[in-house]
C-alpha cells in the first residue's frame, strides 16, 4: 500500500506547471503560419495561371467549331449551354472557396 503522504507529494509534482513564456514561441509559430500562407498563395496563383493559360489555348482551338455549333443552334440550346457553363463555374467557386478566402 503506497504511503498516502508521499502519494500526495507525487500528485503535486506531476501537476506541476512550468512557467513557459509565450512571446518567442508564439512569434515563431506565427512566422511559420505566414510562410505557409504565402506558399499556399503562390501554389494557388501558379495553378490558376496554368489553368488560365490552358483554358485560353483550349478556347482558341475550339473557338471555330464552337462558333459553328452556336450558329446552327436554336435559342433554347444556347440557354442550356450558358446554364452548364454557369453551373461549372459555381462548382469551381464552391470547391475553391477556402482558397479564395485566403487570397482576400
Amino acid at each position, binding site marked *: 500500500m503506497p504511503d498516502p503522504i508521499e502519494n500526495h507529494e*507525487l500528485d503535486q509534482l506531476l501537476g*506541476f506547471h512550468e512557467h513557459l513564456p509565450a512571446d518567442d514561441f508564439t512569434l515563431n509559430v506565427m512566422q511559420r503560419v505566414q510562410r*505557409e500562407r504565402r506558399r499556399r498563395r503562390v501554389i494557388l496563383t501558379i495553378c490558376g495561371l496554368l489553368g488560365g493559360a490552358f483554358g485560353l489555348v483550349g478556347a482558341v482551338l475550339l473557338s471555330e467549331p464552337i462558333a459553328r455549333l452556336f450558329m446552327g443552334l436554336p435559342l433554347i440550346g444556347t440557354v442550356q449551354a450558358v446554364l452548364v457553363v454557369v453551373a461549372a463555374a459555381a462548382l469551381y467557386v464552391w470547391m475553391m472557396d477556402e482558397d479564395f478566402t485566403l487570397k482576400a
Partner: protein
Amino acid sequence: MLSDLELATRVAGSDDQAAFQALVERHQAAIRGFLRRLVAGDHGTADDLAQETFLLAYRKLPTWKASGSLSSWLHTIAYRQFLQFRRKHQRQQVMAEPPDAGFDPGQSMDAEILLPRLMRLVSAEQRACLTLAYAGGMSHPEIVAVTGLPLGTVKSHISRGKQKMQQWLKNNDHSFQTAGTSPASEARHA
C-alpha cells in the same frame, strides 16, 4: 474574452491571424509542457514538436469538430507528432541517461529537474497518461480520446507509472519543491 470555439470559427471562416495567435498564446504552455514531459526534458525537440503541432492545427482547424474541447484536440495532434518523431528517431535513439546518474539523494531538487528524471523511468505511453491526467487535468475518457488507448490501459498506465516513480522516490529518500501545481488535477484524481 472570446472562447476557443469563437476564435477557431474566426480562423476557419476568415483566416483571422489575430484569432489564431490568441489560440496559440492560450494553449502553448499546456502543449509545450506536455511535449517536454513526453520527450523527458529535451526542451528543443519539445518546442519544435509544439510548433509543428500548432502549424498542423492551423491547417486542420476547419475540420475540427467542436464536440470536444480544443485543448484535447491539440493534445491529440501533439501526441501523434510525438509518436511520429519517436518512430523516425527510434534507430538513432541512444540509451536514455539512467535516472540515478549524477543524482545526489540528500539534496532537495527543483521540480523542473526532478520531473524529467522521473519521466525517464516510465514508458512514453505512461508519461502521456500521467501528464494528461495530472498536469492537463483530464478525465480518463478524455485521455482515451487523446491517446487512442483503451480505458483499462490508461488506468493501468497511470497506476503503474506512479508506482515506479513512488518506488524511486522512496529508494532515494527524496524531497522536492514545486513552484506551482494544478489543484484541479489533484481534485480530479485524488
